[in-house]
């Protein structure tokens, strides 16, 4: 038996004439935090909604821990905790009533102490009797996460969990997600536009473009596979003549104070550094191409 917790195979989904997914293949291993990234309309949210049995694919296979989501959505949902892109809570409910409702749906034993313990873990315990509408966006997102976790699912599907949150809430949610994966061993899929968070959080990344997974792997794997060894170097001043740089790089480009270069077989970044040091160019920064720049480059290539 494989340790793939989530499997999507040749999944197609159309909304009328609009194609959302066109033969998407994806596997997520147990205990992994997978980041779904890609441009708007690429199919990230549709992928999460199909996994959580909210949408039915037009064709393809969707498996959650050996359960076919299409034939047995009820049992598949028991394994899943779904966090939508906005909290989607009943604004007039108190926090306690919100949790009571979820507990009733999941047939859980639930009392005030259980609710207070759950809320306390997320810093919401003093607000237990307040209406949801009085909470800040960050507090609502925390409550929404508690609701998604109440039945102790093994898999978490998080759609844009950091959207519109302040730094503190963002860090709080990110730490919680890490804790859930590392300590509780949950398998987590995070869709996000915030690549800095994806970079910090995810063990692997799936880049979705035009309804299919264009690249899958760790950030380094994708970078090497797609772009080769690409780095950028920020200089205090770009020399007027870059003659000889082609000897230690496969290709390079210059934009403002940054030189982006790709290394060929047998070439090392040290050679490039030495090249600029020899020309008396103060180096301000030297790093591999960032995730955001890399994805922009990939998307550009894919879409063309």
């Amino acid at each position, binding site marked *: 038996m494989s340790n793939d917790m989530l499997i999507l195979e040749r999944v197609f989904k159309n909304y009328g004439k609009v194609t959302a997914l066109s033969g998407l293949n994806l596997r997520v291993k147990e205990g992994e935090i997978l980041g779904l990234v890609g441009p708007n309309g690429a199919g990230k949210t549709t992928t999460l909604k199909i996994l959580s049995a*909210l949408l039915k694919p037009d064709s393809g296979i969707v498996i959650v821990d050996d359960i076919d989501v299409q034939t047995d959505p*009820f049992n598949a949902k*028991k394994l*899943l905790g779904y966090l*939508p892109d906005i909290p989607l*809570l*009943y604004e007039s409910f108190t926090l306690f009533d919100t949790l009571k409702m979820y507990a*009733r749906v999941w047939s859980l034993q639930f009392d005030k102490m259980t609710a207070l313990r759950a809320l306390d873990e997320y810093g919401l315990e003093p607000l237990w009797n307040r209406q949801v509408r009085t909470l800040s966006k960050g507090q609502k997102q925390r409550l929404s996460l508690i609701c998604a976790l109440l039945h102790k699912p093994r898999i978490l599907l998080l759609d844009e969990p950091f959207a519109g949150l302040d730094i503190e809430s963002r860090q709080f949610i990110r730490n919680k997600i890490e804790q859930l994966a590392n300590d509780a061993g949950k398998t987590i899929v995070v869709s996000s536009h915030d690549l800095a968070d994806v970079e910090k959080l995810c063990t692997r990344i799936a880049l979705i473009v035009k309804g299919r997974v264009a690249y899958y792997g760790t950030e380094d794997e994708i970078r090497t596979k797609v772009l080769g060894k690409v780095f950028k170097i920020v200089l205090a001043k770009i020399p007027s003549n870059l003659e000889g740089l082609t000897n230690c790089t496969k290709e390079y480009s210059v934009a403002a104070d940054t030189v982006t270069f790709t290394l060929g077989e047998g070439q090392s970044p040290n050679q490039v550094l030495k090249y600029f040091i020899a020309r008396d160019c103060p180096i301000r920064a030297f790093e591999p191409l960032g995730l955001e720049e890399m994805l922009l480059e990939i998307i550009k290539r894919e879409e063309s």
Partner: protein
Amino acid sequence: MLWSVLYKEFLELKSDKGAIARLALQSIVYGLFFPTVMYLQLVGVLPMEIGDVVLTEAEKVTIVKHSLETFGPLLLPFFVSVMASLLVIPSIVQETESRTLERLLSLPLSWRNILFGKFLFYFAISLACAYIIVSIYFLLSSAIVEAFQPPDLGTYLLVLVPAVSFYTVSAGLFVSARARSVRSANVLGGFLTVGLFLLVFFLSWFAGVEPGRDIIVTFSLVLFVVGAKLIYLTAKVNPEKLLT
């Protein structure tokens, strides 16, 4: 699973401060309305004569008695429908607009669980409001005129009132599941429920229909059949279409 939806609806009603009191008060007002108008006419506070016609006390009593026995019972389904439609028409479309339905559907609840849970809840609440309205009406009417003879009370209370509530809740949910916004749901839903009973009231009034047992049973049967068909069609709605 049905119970969890019922419980959620209950929590929603409970969380709306004063909603239960408002519902009860509104039902009481509807129940009081017609007998009060009749009483005020009988005691001369409101005019009963039109033009130069002068009515004797006996004639006034006869008119009031006849109105309370026929005209009022024809009007009551309209009031019952008003109460039920106010509650039920926004119930699904509001959840579609706020996307809370998406969250419910991500839980182990099917669309049918949600629909039938809502149906049972609103049917029960509508019935409670309806019985407040009709009880007040019949009690007050029998206090106003002597030898008050309402239509076949058993059939009226046990068949017509549930039929009106059943149809209104079904039609309200039918419209609510298809509407794109609360406003459009109110327009179409209002026509299919309150509007329909208003039309039926005027038609039966102009046609001089007496609310006898046969008419009540036939009309109720039609309402049950159409209501059942509407709820069946609503259950067939693809829930994906409700996810915005």
